[in-house]
């Protein structure tokens, strides 16, 4: 029942928010999202104390097709839900005072988005999962369309059609799997999907149908072309939603809906191995492009492709370390990237530019900002004791166990990542002040309220990742166990 509330609260408050005409909606939305966060903490304690029944909700929905409203929270879902409920208040807070036109609709869409995102992370019925998956697209589309920057028409079109293209093939895959269940009554329930005995050929095409949807969402090279433009054009809260939470749907989908259903295809060289190679190409390719960027926001967009490529590669290795590292790194990436985008927003708002060549010397003007920035940068380049480290370490362990050479190439991303992150920090914060940064106000109270929780989390994950790893461990174990019953793993 708690899980239902987790979906209903943001949905209803989102609808209510649409009716606000003035800026009071900012506080309303913040309140609703904090309430949601508290509820998710409660769900966390229910999970910890073993009160799992209160998290399950299963009722027939469209009985003719064996579709049920089946939601449940296991370790992985819980971490994703917590990430969502933790980040949404920060996103709402970061948008505070930014004067978006039609604020009611703006915050309403963000909250509606949250409902759909949580739905994706808790759905245990393939049809329901697909519905939530598609529903996330509509709010974000309108957020970018209505509040986006230049060329938004072209960019949102590309974004929408691209992602829809991927998910339609996933729908075909889902319907196909549904028709395989039975023998008499078909069902969309995840348990039935996990029990399917699929031939290797079938697994292969199901793998690619699903992969298309997830790879476009992440995005993985070569399906990434929509991403940098969309991130750049989108208003900052939209970018944060996309990069902080929405792309995690892809990784989550891989872990939940691909690995246990088509494990053979993932172990095959034309399936998972090819996907890992694409991921690694993407890591190197995106890192190099990131180094060449002058637009700060675009730089982070490419950096995001590189980071997410590593997570996907680690997850596709099907090793315990890879999966655990992937889950942990999703949290770390979500927190880092939101911090980075928020700092870019602060700089852009005060200087009216995001071009690194026009910035410089901000550290002398705003030492607090510089401190927060450097911590988040360190976390992004995986300095030990910050959030990025533990996850990335596990991912590399997984990759090295899988294949030495692939892991070796992927390791270059550590170096390249350090190059572009430190380079951008240096350009923006150090050196002499430029014309645009000569007057620069340090952090306001609101802004600190966003950055402090982020930094606390960065250190928490960095120093004591066990809090989170122990949550996802049973779920990851179950997945590995289930596959190794039928297949021999490396």
């Amino acid at each position, binding site marked *: 029942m708690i899980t239902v509330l987790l979906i209903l609260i943001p949905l209803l408050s989102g609808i209510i928010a649409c009716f606000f005409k003035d800026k009071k909606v900012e506080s309303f939305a913040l309140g609703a999202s904090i309430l949601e966060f508290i509820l998710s903490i409660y769900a966390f304690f229910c999970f910890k104390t073993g009160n799992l029944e209160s998290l399950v909700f299963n009722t027939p*929905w*469209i*009985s*003719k*097709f064996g579709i049920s409203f089946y939601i449940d929270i296991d370790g992985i879902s819980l971490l994703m839900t917590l990430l969502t409920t933790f980040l949404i208040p920060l996103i709402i807070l970061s948008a505070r005072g930014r004067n978006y036109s039609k604020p009611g609709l703006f915050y309403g869409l963000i909250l509606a988005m949250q409902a759909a995102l949580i739905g994706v992370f808790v759905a245990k019925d393939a*049809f329901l999962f697909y*519905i939530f998956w*598609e*529903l996330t*697209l*509509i709010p974000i589309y*309108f957020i970018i*369309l*209505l509040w986006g920057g230049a060329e*938004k*028409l072209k960019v949102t*079109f590309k974004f*929408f*059609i691209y992602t*829809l*293209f991927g998910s*339609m*093939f996933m*729908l*075909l895959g889902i*319907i*196909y799997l*549904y*028709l395989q269940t039975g023998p008499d009554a078909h069902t969309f329930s995840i348990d039935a999907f996990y029990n399917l005995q699929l031939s290797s050929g079938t697994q292969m095409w199901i793998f690619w149908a699903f992969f298309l949807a997830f790879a476009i969402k992440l995005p993985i090279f070569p399906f990434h072309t929509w991403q940098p433009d969309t991130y750049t054009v989108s208003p900052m809260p939209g970018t944060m939603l996309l990069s902080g939470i929405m792309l995690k749907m892809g990784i989550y989908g891989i872990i939940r809906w691909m690995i246990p259903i088509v494990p053979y295809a993932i172990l095959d060289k034309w399936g998972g191995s090819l996907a890992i190679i694409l991921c690694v190409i993407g890591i190197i390719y995106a890192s190099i492009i990131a180094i060449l960027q002058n637009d700060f926001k675009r730089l982070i967009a490419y950096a995001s492709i590189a980071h997410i490529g590593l997570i996907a590669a680690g997850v596709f290795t099907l090793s315990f370390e890879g999966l655990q590292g992937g889950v942990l790194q999703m949290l770390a990436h979500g927190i880092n990237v939101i911090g980075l985008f928020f700092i870019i927003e602060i700089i852009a708002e005060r200087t009216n530019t995001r071009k690194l060549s026009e910035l410089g010397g901000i550290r002398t003007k705003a030492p607090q900002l510089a401190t927060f920035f450097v911590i988040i940068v360190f976390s992004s380049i995986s300095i030990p004791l910050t959030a990025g480290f533990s996850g990335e370490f596990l991912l590399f362990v997984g990759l090295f166990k899988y294949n030495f050479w692939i892991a070796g190439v992927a390791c270059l991303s550590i170096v390249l990542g350090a190059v572009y992150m430190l380079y951008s920090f240096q350009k923006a914060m150090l050196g002499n002040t430029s014309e645009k940064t000569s007057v620069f106000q340090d952090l306001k109270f609101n802004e600190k309220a966003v950055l402090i929780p982020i930094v606390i989390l960065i250190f928490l994950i960095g120093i004591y990742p066990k809090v989170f790893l122990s949550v996802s461990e049973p779920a990851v174990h179950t997945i590995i166990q289930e596959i190794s019953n039928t297949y021999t793993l490396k």
Partner: protein
Amino acid sequence: MNTIITLSVLGIISMLSDILGYKKFILPIVIGGLLVAACSTVAAWNVPQQYFNMMQFDNYAVAFSTLIIVILILWVALSNQQYATEFNRADQYALILFSTVGAIVLVSFHSLVMLFVGIEVLSIPLYILAGSRKTDLSSNEASLKYFMMGAFTTGILLFGITLIYGATGSFDISIIQTYVANMEGDVTPMFYTGVIFLLIALSFKISAVPFHFWAPDVYQGAPTMITTFMATIVKIAAFGAFYRLFSICFANIMDNWTFILSIVIVLTIVVGNILAVRQTNVKRMLAYSGISQAGYMLMTLLVLNNESTNALLFYAGSYALSTIVAFTIFNVVHHLTGDEGFDGFNALGKRQPLLALIMTIAMLSLAGIPPAVGFFAKFYLFETVLSQGNTFLVIIAVLGSIVSVYYYFKLIIAMYVKETTAVIPIKVNTLFQAILIVITGVILILGINPSLFLEIIR
């Protein structure tokens, strides 16, 4: 049968209303009569009746007739608003009602003769209505073109019926069914040619590619409310006839015609969607969108079981609801801005937020995006077709519906992002809004809980 009688009488009543002087009350009379017709149709549920081996009111006929009458009630209610045609209203209702009688005959025929009669009764009033804007050149063109194509189609249809009669010696569809069953799939070339002719003639009526070229011109030229009627009721009826004929008579020799039909389906989906992308006129865009939607619905003919009947019915209903909303709002916008293009919709989100929202939901439904009913309709259809293993066609359909997002969203973008310099306020009356809100509510409710209408035909 009661339905046909009620509708015919209602048609005569509204025709006489001018002479007998009760024209003022014509709207309540028509709506009331239609409600009676709807009730008498539903009353025939599970009570199959046959009339002189000519008509058979089985559950299939009842389901389609009910859908047609419900859509007609919505049509009458919406077209009564300030922007109806310049035509005399009573005459217009009379013609529409007679045309609907044809539609009902088409979904309940039991003899090929009635199929022919139904198509003629359906079409002839429409030839007149399409040209009802007498001084407008394009309206005249639409009427003439529709008439020419209609006459041509009728010729092909009659030729097909004749050939089948020649082979079987009967117009009765159950005798034809027995004939096919006895031949065990090995039919004579004469019969086979007849089947193909019928397939072509009916493809004309549902505007499937390559028999579609009349549709955009006729849709564009005819008064918008008449176009709405053609895009919804006529299309449902034609599909009802197509499906009924092929599922009863020719299901046993499917292998002989599925290949041709598959080609028609692929062409319809591909050409319909690609040409819709190129349109700058909203009416033409909706015409091409109707063509591509016909392509999806045609896929049910490759399955031919209870599942596919239900899927067709559900899809037709979902399509008709969304289309009627889209055309009516276009009509309002067109009359106020005088612009038939996408630009007429510019900034509708600011000028008339409610209409813009309703239009957005209709577009989402046509594009097949949840939570609108169009998504579930597409899902149902794809599931049914996939369960028979037609993966290739479903992939084409999926690609087509991705392309369709382009042109449906063009309208959404125009409404919410584009600016306009026009200052004319867009005002619509409350009743009109209320009806649209109800239809939108149905679109959403059926999208969230489609179980209500899933297993109508068992």
